[in-house]
Every structure is written in C-alpha cells, then in structure tokens.
C-alpha cells in the first residue's frame, strides 16, 4: 500500500530540474498490454475448461452416463463403452483431464445426443443468429443510453428525475416479462412485428428491444452519473468561459468522459446479453446458442451444455480484450507514455 502511495507521488513529481519525460510513442507498450490481456484470457479459458471438467466429474453418477446424455436417455452398453474409450474414462483422472483438454484444443467438443450431431456442428449452426441478436442489442442499448443521457441529464429537476427514474425502471425489467409485454402489444394487438421467427430485420426488432432496454437502463445509469460529475468539473467551466454553449460542452467535452465507464461495462453487458439470449430465444422461438444451451440443460445433454458454456467463455474473453483496446481508443490517456 505504501508502495502505491509513493508511486502516485512520483507521478506528480514536478521539480523544475527534471527534464520532461520524453513522449515516446508507446506502440510497444500497447502491444505488450494486448499481449498481456491475451495471456490472461488464455489462463481464464484454461480455468473455465478445468471447471467444466470438474463439473462433470463432481456430478452425482457416472461421468460416462452424463456424457452419453444422462440416465434418461438410457445409453446402451456399447455406447457407454465407446464413450469410456473416447474420453479415457477407464484411466486415471489426470489422464482423463489431459485427454479432455487435448480434445478441446482440437475443437472436439464431444457429441450431442439430443441433437444427434457433434457439438461443434450444433454451435456452428447456432452462433450466427445469436451474434446477430446480441450485437444488435448491444448497439441499440448504447444508442438508447447515450441519447437518453444527452437529453435528460441536468435539464432541471423534473426532467432529470424522470430520466433517471426511467433508467432505474428499465434496468429492473426482467427480459422475460418485458418480452411478453412487447409481444402482447406489438405482435398480438398491433400486429406490427411478428411474434416468432420472422424474416430478417422485422423479426429482430422485438427480441433486440427486449434485450437492449434493461441493458440500456444499466448503461444509462452509469453514463448519467459520469455525465453529471463531468458537467461539474472545472474543465467544463473553463470551456464555458471560452464562450462554448451548453450543447457544445456536452458533446465536445462531457460525453467522452461519460461513456468511459460504460465502455468498461460493455464486456459485462455482452455476458448479460448472452444470458438474456437464453430467455429471449426461448420466448421468441428463435434458433441460437441460448436455445441450444437450454436444450442441453433440460435434456441433460452434458457435452452440449459444456460446449455452449465454453464458447460463451471464449466470447467473453475475446470481448474483454476488445473492450480494453476500445477503451484505449476512447481514452487517449492510456495510450500516452505519461500514464
């Protein structure tokens, strides 16, 4: 602790005799940072794989049976024997673990009994629709949150409290309920959008809003708080003292500061969107990873469940790295040598 305190002190060190730190363009440090992120991500994925391995082996009952689709699927002796051979289940646990890891590294996620095809194939079939849904929702959530903040932060007490009240409400809406309301109103009563499936964009609107609104509520709350504190900072007063208008300081100065914490939340938001995708895909009868996962869980199809969970972990790790890079773009302070 003393270390960090004193390190902070060095940073502000400012004697007149010290030559200015040369502003080395720190591309190397940036690459190093990304590399560090990637190594960290690999460690996390290894941990995730280990955890799922433990999950199967801690489960009550015979691992071979769970790989074969659970007790309910009544696997035959020959199927079990094949599985025992494939996963090396007759060998010591450590060997089983290594076989498991090596299978994963070769992209072999096992065979899904409920879908009657390799897990990797199930995932390949389902990854597209889910990516469409979650990425669309993430963009929509950001647009909603930023526009809402720009319009309602510090606009007098009434508008501001309506703004923040709606954000809290939006953040508390469970996706299943919000989806039902949207379905009820826009599909069954007004008939504007299809209730299930639907082609292209038309069918994507309701699921996207269902997913995006609660996330927008969260992002909006964080953005609002940052926005408010940014608008109170001296650099805003300075900008106004140079003759800048209210909209000018909002767009040119405060907005960038306000979205920063939200950007760090984007990794989490993506995870939350994937959670939400399980519900939304089920509700709107869409194909996707969420539905595949739900099927894996309800049918006790362990290879499918674990396969999807691991893919989500990969997505999360990649997203975290991307967010870190994005953050450096939005906040130039991290790119500079001084920090």
């Amino acid at each position, binding site marked *: 602790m003393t270390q960090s305190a004193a390190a902070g002190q060095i940073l502000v060190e400012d004697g007149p005799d010290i030559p200015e730190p040369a502003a080395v363009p720190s591309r190397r440090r940036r690459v190093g940072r990304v590399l560090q992120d990637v190594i960290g991500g690999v460690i996390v994925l290894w941990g995730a794989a280990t955890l799922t391995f433990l999950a199967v082996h801690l489960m009550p009952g015979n691992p071979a049976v769970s790989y074969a689709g659970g007790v309910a699927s009544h696997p035959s002796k020959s199927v079990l024997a094949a599985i025992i051979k494939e996963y090396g289940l007759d060998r010591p646990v450590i060997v089983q673990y290594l076989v498991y890891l090596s299978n994963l590294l070769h992209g072999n996620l096992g065979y899904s009994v409920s879908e009657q095809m390799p897990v990797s194939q199930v995932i390949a079939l389902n990854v597209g629709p889910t990516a469409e849904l979650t990425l669309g929702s993430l963009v929509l959530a950001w647009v909603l949150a930023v526009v809402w903040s720009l319009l309602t932060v510090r606009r007098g007490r009434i508008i501001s409290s309506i703004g923040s009240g709606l954000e809290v409400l939006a953040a508390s809406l469970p996706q299943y309920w919000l989806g039902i309301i949207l379905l009820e109103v826009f599909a*069954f009563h007004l008939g504007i959008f299809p209730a299930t499936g639907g082609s292209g964009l038309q069918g994507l609107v309701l699921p996207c809003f269902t997913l995006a609104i609660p996330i927008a509520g969260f992002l909006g709350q964080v953005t609002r708080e940052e926005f408010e504190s940014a608008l109170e900072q001296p650099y805003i007063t300075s900008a106004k003292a140079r003759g800048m208008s209210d909209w000018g300081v909002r767009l040119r100065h405060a907005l960038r500061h306000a979205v920063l914490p939200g950007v760090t*939340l984007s990794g989490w938001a993506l995870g939350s969107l994937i959670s939400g995708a399980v519900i939304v895909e089920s509700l709107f009868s869409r194909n996707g990873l969420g539905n595949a996962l739900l099927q894996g869980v309800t049918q006790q199809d362990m290879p499918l469940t674990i396969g999807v969970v691991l893919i989500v972990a990969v997505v999360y790790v990649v997203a975290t790295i991307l967010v870190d890079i994005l953050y450096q773009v939005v906040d130039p302070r991290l790119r500079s040598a001084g920090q």
Partner: protein
Amino acid sequence: MPPAEQRNNALMTVTNVSSAIDQQPGIVRLGGRARGLSPGIVLAWLVVAFLVISVAWPGLIAREAPLAVDPAHPLQGPSLSHLFGTDQSGRDVFSRVVYGARESLSIGVAATGVGLAIAIVLGFAAGLGGRWADTVISRFLEVLFSFPSLLLALLFVAMFGAGVGSLIIAVGIGSAPGYARMIRGQVIAVRNAPYVEAAKVLGHPPLRIMANSIFPNAMRPLLVLGTLGIGQSIVWASALSFLGLGAAPPAPEWGAMLAAGRDFISSAWWLEFFPGAVIVATALAATALGRHLQRRLEGRLA
C-alpha cells in the same frame, strides 16, 4: 458483476462529493433530500408492507386458496371479483400471487444469503490472505466471470437437476462472483485506509485492528449489497422458473406462474402481466431501499 463495481464507484463518487462539499463551509450540505422521504421511497415501503402481509398473513388479502380450482370460470380477465383474472383452471391469480410471495421471497432471500456467504469467504480470504491467496482467488473469480451469471446457474442446474433447492444454490453461485469482487475491493480499501495505519502507529496489535477497524468497516456495505441483491436474486430465480428449471406448476410461485402462463400468452395476457409486475415491483422496491440505505449510511459515516 460490474453493477456491483458500478455501485462501488457510485459509493466512491458520493463520498468524494461529500468531502469536497465539506471543505467549503460556504456550501450548505445537501443531505436533506437524501434523508427525506421521497415519493419513490414511500412507494417502496408500501410494496414492502404488501409483501410482509402476503408472507405473514396471506389470508388477510387473498380471498381464495391459491390452489382452489373453479372449472366454471377459466381464463377470465381482470374484474372486481378476480382482480388479476383467473388461470386455465379458474384459479384466482391475485390469490396465487399473494400466496406465492412466501416461496418467491424465500428463494430470493436464501439465494442472496448463499451468494453473500460464498462471497464473504472468498472476498476476505483474498483481501487479507496475502498476495498469493489474492492472486489465486482473483484468477478464480475471473474464470467465474467468464460465465455470465445465468449460465453459471444453468450449469449448476444441469449438474444437479431442476428444483427449488438447486435453484437457490444456483442463483447464489451465479451472484457470488460479483459480491466477492466487491467485498474484496472493500476489504483492501479498508486495509489500506489511513485510519488503519493510524491505529498501527498507535501500536495496536493486528488482531485488535482487525476486530475494531477492518472487519466492521469492510462489512459495512453488506446490508446495502444484500438489499440490492434480493431484488436481483428474485428476478434471476424467476427467470430460471420461467425456463422451467425451478419450482414446478401449479405451485403458487411467481416464476412458475409465468412459466405456466406461457401457453396462453396470446389470449390471456393477465396470466403473465401480473406475476411479472409483482416481480418488477419487488425488485424496484429492493433497489430503491438499498440505495436509500446506502445514501443514509454514507451521509452519516462519510
């Protein structure tokens, strides 16, 4: 989850502002509004009162038994005799919602308790156990974070099967990493606080500093965290029930009621709307009260 982190940041922001205000005697402290009863807080307390009565004396407000079927009046819309309408077997939805409070709230509270208990152990071990323990636990939490919480819960359900018991543990495990990270941060912040150093300079032994300063201050946000968490747990638990992985119909549990109503989604909106609205109201009340509590604690304690 980052919302916890976000709360943490909010906590720090508020603290900074209050200390900044404090340094300028010319500015009147703006504590009044936070301490007063805003309409939102009044509403939140009303929801709590409704829930307490539903849990303790459901018979006072519910006119019918939650499982009493009335085949003559299935799928009736909301009316004066059936405030929230009736379901496919003619059961009164309002009565079911009232009676359901007991189970749904128990699940939420129990799941929050499970999550916090795991988190306290991990958070304190990481915060106080030295560099090695901190590294291992932080990495472990990172691994857990790579599974979104609903997925973590689903994985648990996949392992141990559906049901109320495994639902509670699943939601608890799903929420634990977020709490744990928050508690770890708080423990480290308190451990490094100048007042802990001041106690060290006074010559107090480590155990005394731990008991008098570190532990009570590190536990301070737990009440707020728990209050905020109950709302979230209820929402998650009902989501799992909605997916058919929790309490089974026809039990009067909110999530299970939602699951059962899905078959009538295009014809009987009230089957989905009212149980969901009660869940949202409960979650909102928990959030509002949690924040209110947070502001009050900070106002008093800086």
